[in-house]
């Protein structure tokens, strides 16, 4: 293979890895937005907490990969539900902005609380034996394969749950209407809690994978990754689950390709300029539908 193609393939692989991590986080943003039309700005920090849960499970409990991942997802899911119950539920009928500011507050609280307990960046031990295969010049690590396949698997499970199961049907119904659907016997609070649990659990999984791929973690790592995931959700059309996945892979691709062919400091500039243009041309995202405005 010529060198150019090898380089492209290598970068595409990296883009897939980054994109699948963004996608897992973007799903949480988009699900919560779909149901509550609320931007959960604490979500990036739930991802960060996920990475720290992974650290705790791997170092203090000495667990191998699979139980670490499950424990992290469970812990993050519980955290997500707790945040919803304590901070967002009382504000369900308050002005929307109050809930957004509360979410920002919860996020800053999580960051600084973690910082108070863990003032120095932590190193994650290698939980998986990392084998690197050489495919005609393109190097493929087992870690990359696991991250990409596991993320895709989780996304397929989620897509199935949302589109094919009663719980998913209830979620879609509630995102459609919050007044009459509960009258048909759909438990509103339970479904909202389940949504937060799934979203936060996926963020926890993303935290574990991020920690394995980039093994130094610190309390502020969730801010930038969280915003990027949020942007992915918007690019795909916020509230749309498949859109969030597509948006995440697009953003991951753009970021990796900009870094591959330009100085790496241009990354944010190009990513955000594209975002701005996209919103001006298609404000409702790639898969979103324009909402008709009632007068």
């Amino acid at each position, binding site marked *: 293979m010529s060198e150019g193609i090898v380089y492209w393939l290598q970068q595409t692989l990296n883009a897939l890895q980054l994109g699948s991590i963004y996608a897992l986080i973007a799903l949480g943003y988009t699900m919560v937005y779909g149901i509550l039309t609320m931007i959960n700005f604490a979500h990036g920090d739930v991802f960060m907490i996920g990475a720290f849960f992974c650290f705790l499970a791997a170092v203090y409990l000495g667990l191998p990969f699979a139980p670490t991942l499950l424990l992290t997802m469970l812990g993050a899911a519980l955290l997500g539900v707790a945040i919803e119950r304590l901070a967002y539920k009382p504000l369900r009928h308050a*002005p929307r902005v*109050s809930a957004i500011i509360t979410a920002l507050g919860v996020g800053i609280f999580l960051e600084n609380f973690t910082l108070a307990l863990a*003032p120095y960046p932590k190193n994650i031990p290698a939980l998986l034996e990392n084998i690197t295969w050489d495919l005609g010049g393109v190097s493929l690590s087992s870690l990359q394969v696991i991250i990409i396949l596991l993320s895709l698997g989780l996304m397929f499970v989620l897509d199935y749950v949302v589109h094919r199961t009663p719980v998913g049907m209830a979620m879609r119904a509630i995102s459609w209407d919050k007044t009459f659907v509960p009258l048909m016997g759909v438990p509103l609070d339970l479904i909202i809690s389940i949504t937060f649990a799934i979203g936060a659990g996926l963020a926890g999984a993303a935290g574990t994978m991020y920690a394995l791929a980039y093994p130094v973690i610190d309390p502020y790592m969730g801010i930038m990754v969280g915003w990027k995931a949020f942007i992915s959700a918007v690019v795909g059309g916020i509230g749309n689950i498949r859109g969030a996945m597509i948006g995440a892979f697009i953003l991951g691709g753009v970021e990796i390709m900009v870094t591959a062919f330009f100085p790496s400091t241009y990354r944010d500039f190009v990513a955000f300029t594209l975002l*701005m243009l996209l919103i001006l041309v298609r404000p409702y995202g790639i898969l979103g539908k324009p909402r008709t405005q009632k007068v």
Partner: protein
Amino acid sequence: MAQRWLLPALLLVGFGLAFAIPEYNLLNKYVQLVMMYVGINIILTVSLNLVNGYMGEFSLAHAGFMAVGAYTAALLTQKVLPVAAYPGLFPLAVLAGGLMAAVLGLIVAVPSFKVRGDYLAIITLAFLMIVKSVIENIDTIGGPRGIPGIKKLTTLPWVFFWTVFSIWVVRNFVYSKYGRGVLSIREDEIASDLMSVNTRRVKFLAFMVSSFFAGIAGALFAHLLQFISPRVFDIIKTTDVLIMVYLGGIASIGGSILGATVYTVLLELLRPSTVAAMLAWLPAVVFDPLNEYFIRHLGVWRMVIMPLLLVLVMLYWPRGIMGLREFRWFIPKRDLEAHHRQPAHGGNHGVAHGH
């Protein structure tokens, strides 16, 4: 009317104090510094409240406008204007910073004609990130390293002047014909269009006034901190201002002043050294271990306490301390009288409800 001369008199006293305090060291240097930060934060909060509170949008770009003002002013005082010889040129640099920010405010104002709500919020976020990224990539203005060694030109009288000026402008704007337009956009843009409000011109003006004062605040901030870098003006800075706006209460000038003051002072009060100074009257047996404990732990935990307080305020006062209310002081006489005749103006309609 006793109030007629009360306000000018108070302003005069305030101005006199702003001159006298640094001149005769009436208060210690640290308190003076905190007062200047309070002033700068009031400018930021009042100006952001114009867009986020009165107009009902959710702008995240304020730190970006601040950066533009800070960099413009700092480059002028460092490279262009001979401020060392003529310190009187400093206000020109500050003004230039504000104007530059106002011009860039158009970049956000134009998309706001088409896009609203969450999507406009994302455009403002993108603007903030682009400003930061552009500064990082221009090496002649320091790139990611920033500009060190800016002269300390921000003084208490200047901060006082700009604070009063920003409050005056925003207050008069809000209660003017255009201000009515701003409020009507928040309540219902289509309806206000139908009532022949020129929504485009109103948005232009609101964004430009808001970003102008963000630039002014940035310029003052740069010449107080004496060091700026792109990292100073990231999303965390915007979040700080947002917190002050919503803590104080949306669509309220009094609330913004209160929010900025409470937040800034509270953060300073929770510093270990301040707590130690406040507890200095305790006997040494009690004081020493307490002090040691605070020095070791309060520094980090105060940043945990603040967001927790914010969440509690939001849970119990979802509209902030002064949300949609105003000190009688800031309301013009004609409005007060109209208020007495027919209650519920501006009303308790949901603010920033679904778009």
